[in-house]
């Protein structure tokens, strides 16, 4: 009898905790969206890092006209990128790249929840480029 009460209570408490947990963290479909958002944030960061061009060379880098493997090979004394890095993994569309002038750039993506993607980055990742969750754009400047 006591065993039945204990087991029933265990099952009820665990079920209640699981339901609460799922309600608070979102269903798997929601989790998938977050995962794509995190990937977007990471890829924008990676692109911005390359465009920022930390290598110190005598000639000032001139931002490429477009994002492509070829343009990156010639940029900043030679950098490596793969084509899939420029493409949104969910939609298959390329990220928007805006060249404001020879030095200033913006790379943008369409996020479900950009603020959340931003918050999920490790606390130690501090960059020298700016992310605007309202526009979904990462802006920066080649050195």
């Amino acid at each position: 009898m006591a065993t039945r009460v204990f087991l029933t209570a265990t099952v009820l408490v665990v079920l209640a905790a699981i339901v609460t947990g799922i309600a608070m963290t979102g269903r798997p479909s929601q989790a998938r969206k977050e995962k794509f958002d995190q990937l977007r944030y990471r890829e924008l960061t990676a692109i911005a890092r390359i465009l920022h061009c930390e290598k110190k060379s005598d000639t000032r880098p001139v931002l490429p006209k477009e994002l492509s493997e070829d343009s990156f090979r010639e940029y900043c004394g030679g950098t490596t990128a793969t084509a899939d890095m420029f493409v949104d993994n969910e939609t298959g569309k390329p990220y928007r790249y805006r060249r404001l002038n020879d030095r200033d750039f913006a790379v943008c993506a369409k996020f479900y929840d950009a603020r959340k993607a931003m918050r999920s980055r490790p606390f130690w990742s501090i960059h020298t480029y700016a992310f605007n969750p309202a526009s979904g754009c990462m802006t920066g400047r080649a050195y």
Partner: protein
Amino acid sequence: MASSDPVTRFVHDALAAGRSRTEIQNALSEAGWAKSDVDKALSAFADVDFTPPVPRPRPQLTARDVFVYALLFTALTFTAVYLINLVHGILDLALPDPADRSNAEARAIYRIRWAIATLIVSTPLYVWMTIFTGRQNAKQVGEKRSLVRRWLTYLALFASALTFFGDITYVLERFLEGEFTLRFLLKALTVGAVSASIFFFYLRDVEADRDGH
């Protein structure tokens, strides 16, 4: 008889030499052996007039018992640990601490999902194993039943103690890192409630076992 227990060996030799049970009892008592030890050693042999002494069958834990109970208590430990983890994760999200790191939310979500996955596996396994072993034990009689139950109980108490030590250490570490908020209190309460309910549920079994003797 190949017994490593000196009292049992003595009882065997004395019975073989034709001594009565009362004589053996007195001799052992005078030598300082506890009554329970003496009774246990005497009960190892059937009370029949036959030489050499006839041993009674003795209950033993089989490899199968070990498998079943090891699985049962692993499932119990995982259920307890991850139930606590899940509630802690929910508390982290529900009562965010301004002193938390910026990615605390993401870490809490990760923790919650991991805990849910574990519980979906471990809880049904634990419930099913408990019902299964309960039915098996109901078929067993006398000493075998109490032997298994004793092992079951002490393993459960061990699991519960491990849960308590591990989780209370974690909660206290958070406290020392400055989490002295309502959330800390609720987390500590969760650890206490889960450990205590396991502890008392299985302690009841020890008591029942003692009454049975």
